[in-house]
């Protein structure tokens, strides 16, 4: 009777061409971490955000995602490293970043939304349509929202996923017959002024800004040398972010591992799935009501939803359930003018 290890070796060598090291589990990775500068969050995550991996910060608007990201960048730039901020909605505010302590000279900022029209004060055209920022409301159907004949044929969350696909106004079909005024003009022999041909600028598609942001991140990862890349999709509604292919996040994860870059993804919806090594969710923040005249800030709350390769404190498996670590943290995010507590 051969030993188990011999059998394993035989099986592995037989399958080596198809599945390399089939029966050997992948070695656990313990990544170095960069502190975020927020003591509570660093303590919660065991040292900060992992280097060479994708970290996801999920939360609704006004929950404190940007302040976490900027605080992290301030720590990175302080170590004379170079960072990039890929901004899908041109929401980055340099003044706030400078107040937190980010060295703007070491931060490459890429604005992916079209700001050519937005920069002029007179133009009222919104580059990204407003509905882009509004999460679609699920349908109020009889059985789960899908209007199926029976609840078992319904798929959970289908209506939420489909919401937003049909929010655009359907253009009414144009009449084939010439309009009454035109017909009258033709009948009376009146000449119709010719409409000068003007090339219209293509309307920005919903996905354009996201696509630009993703391609830009790809290019930055290929270049290498950026210690932190923040992909800011925080202003984009979940139904648009959810359409990003999962392979994109996998690609980023592999690239980040190779270049030892830390990718920070800001979203409203957890879209990276298994591509992210650390997923943090920001809960609704509470206001700090200290001063009556100035806005003092807020108290964000954060919880760890997912953390891969967490290093166990000890290798001994306890018979009892070990004490569980805290999964949430909170801190004060004070405005620069409010001063210290």
């Amino acid at each position, binding site marked *: 009777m051969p030993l188990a290890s011999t059998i394993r070796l035989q099986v592995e060598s037989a399958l080596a061409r198809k599945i390399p090291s089939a029966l050997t589990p992948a070695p656990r990775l313990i990544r170095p971490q960069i502190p975020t*500068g*927020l003591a509570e969050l660093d303590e919660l995550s065991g040292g900060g955000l992992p280097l060479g991996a994708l970290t996801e910060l999920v939360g609704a*608007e*006004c929950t404190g*995602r*940007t*302040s976490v990201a900027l*605080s992290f960048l*301030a*720590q990175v*730039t302080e*170590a004379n*490293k*170079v960072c990039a901020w890929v901004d899908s909605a041109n*929401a*980055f*505010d*340099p*003044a*706030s*970043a400078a*107040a*937190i*302590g980010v*060295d*703007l*000279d*070491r931060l*490459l*900022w*890429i*604005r992916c939304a079209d*700001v*050519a029209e*937005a920069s002029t004060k007179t133009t009222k055209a*919104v580059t990204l349509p*407003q509905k882009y*920022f*509004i999460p679609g409301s699920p349908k109020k159907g009889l059985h789960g929202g899908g209007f199926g004949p029976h609840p078992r044929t319904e798929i959970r969350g289908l209506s939420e996923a489909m919401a937003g696909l049909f929010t655009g106004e359907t253009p009414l079909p144009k009449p084939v017959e010439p309009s009454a005024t035109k017909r009258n003009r033709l009948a009376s022999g009146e000449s119709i002024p010719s409409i000068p041909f003007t090339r219209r600028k293509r309307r920005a598609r919903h996905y354009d800004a996201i696509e*630009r942001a993703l391609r*830009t991140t790809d290019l*930055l990862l290929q*270049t*290498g*040398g950026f*210690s932190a890349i923040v992909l800011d999709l*925080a202003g984009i509604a979940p139904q648009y972010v959810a359409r990003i292919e999962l392979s994109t996040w996998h690609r980023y994860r592999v690239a980040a591992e190779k270049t030892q870059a830390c990718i920070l993804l800001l979203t409203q919806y957890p879209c990276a799935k298994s591509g992210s090594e650390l997923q943090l969710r920001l809960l*609704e*923040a509470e*206001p700090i009501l200290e001063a009556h*005249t*100035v*806005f003092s*800030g807020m108290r964000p709350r954060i919880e760890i939803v997912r953390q891969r390769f967490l290093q166990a404190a000890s290798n001994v498996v306890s018979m009892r359930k070990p004490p569980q670590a805290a999964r949430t943290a909170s*801190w*004060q995010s*004070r*405005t*620069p003018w409010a001063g210290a*507590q």
Partner: protein
Amino acid sequence: MNSGELYACLLVREFPAQALLRLRPELREKPCVILDGEPPAETVCSLNTRARLLGVQRGMTKVEVDTFGSITILPRSRSVEAAAKTALLECAGAHSPRVELQEEENVFLCCLDITGTEALFGPPEVLAKTLRQRVALLGLSAQVAVSGNFHASILLAKGLPARTAIVVVPSGAESMALAPLSLSVLAISEAHAETLSRWGIRTLGMLAALPRTDLIARLGQDGKRLQQMATGTMPHLFQPIDVPFVLEETAELDYPLDNLESLLFGVAVMLEQLIVRAAMRVYALAAVTVELHLDGGGTHCRTVSPRVPTNDRHLWLKLLHLDLEAHPAGAPISKVCLHAEPGVTSKVQLGLFSPQLPESGRLDVTLARIAALVGDDNVGRAVLDDTHTSPGFHMEPFAVPSGSSTTKVSRTAYGCLRRVCPPERLSITLDCGRPSGFFFRGHRYTVRHAYGPWLAGGEWWNERIWGQEQWDLIAQGDDETTLYGCVHQDFVQKSWLLVGLYD
């Protein structure tokens, strides 16, 4: 004659043809002739060796050249010749600061005063060889003659057979070296040439052997000058020129081009020349300006400057490609001028513990690619302006800073604003002049706390007047969400705008 003097004469034969074929290496192996003059009375002014072997001669008309067949005919281009001349002078200037240019038709001729350069460049043979090799790097074939007399070196260069590239005559042996040369190397008037030929004088040696007094009695002072030149004893007052250092290349296209790929094929050769010339002086290219002369008469000018001066040809080509792709000329191109600014070669100090930074060359290409994707103004680093107006910053090109960061990280303030770009107009409800509720993105919000107003304004003295009051609002939505917003009331446009969200 001062025995310490030493001159090197640099001669480029068939200069119009060589100057044109310099930037077109694909034509060098084919018979080519250069036509000069007003059409239809154009004649051959210069030709390459392959055309000469076919039997083409200088002075032939276009019709006569056409009878040979398979000969490439190119029009003469003075601008290309001028660019080649500048490159040659600059190359000569790298070996001696004293260079005198001799203007002659169809050849490039300049003389270098190389007295006392042995310590730098070695013996004259080595210098001549180096000089010729450097000229060969420019795509030209030259001959070099070194002698102790200015005129003797020129005559020796002119009289060199085509296969001999370098001749070095030791001091005092000029007359012996000049003796076998034909009289045609001397610039003799027709009358004197006829007289000398009647006397049976065919070489410089024969002319030198004539009795001086009798020669002067018959030919005058010209006779004395000719004999001095033939013996290599003619004195000369050296008149050095200011050697230019202009990195410029020009190419005229045979027919207007509108294909960028084909254009870059030619630009690559020109770029290589510029890099070679800059590298000769231990420089790198800091900026390259491409001037495209369009078919309709216009000019399209683009300047590319990477963050760090570089001599990487592929990097330059990629940057030019991306720039021209992002800013197309819009019309077929008939002529290309490349102008480069030299910069110091980049020095990078590597360290074991220095942080990982992007490689400058790759970063330039990446930034150019991103700029093509999102626009030039949307990539870079933000620089804060000293103003209270919105947006309060401007963009500058991104470059990796070399020093250490001086920004102090805040230990208390983490609250920050996310801009709403462009600001969204709000319909707001006021209660005693303070905001009490508003609609935003399809939801109704009730204001719980309103901080303000903070007034700001300026430029009331001109048309760009602005004035606003700022409110910081904590509002509760009908979907039970809390919104921390920064709202401006614009006094000029009389509207309420949500400019940012505290996040």
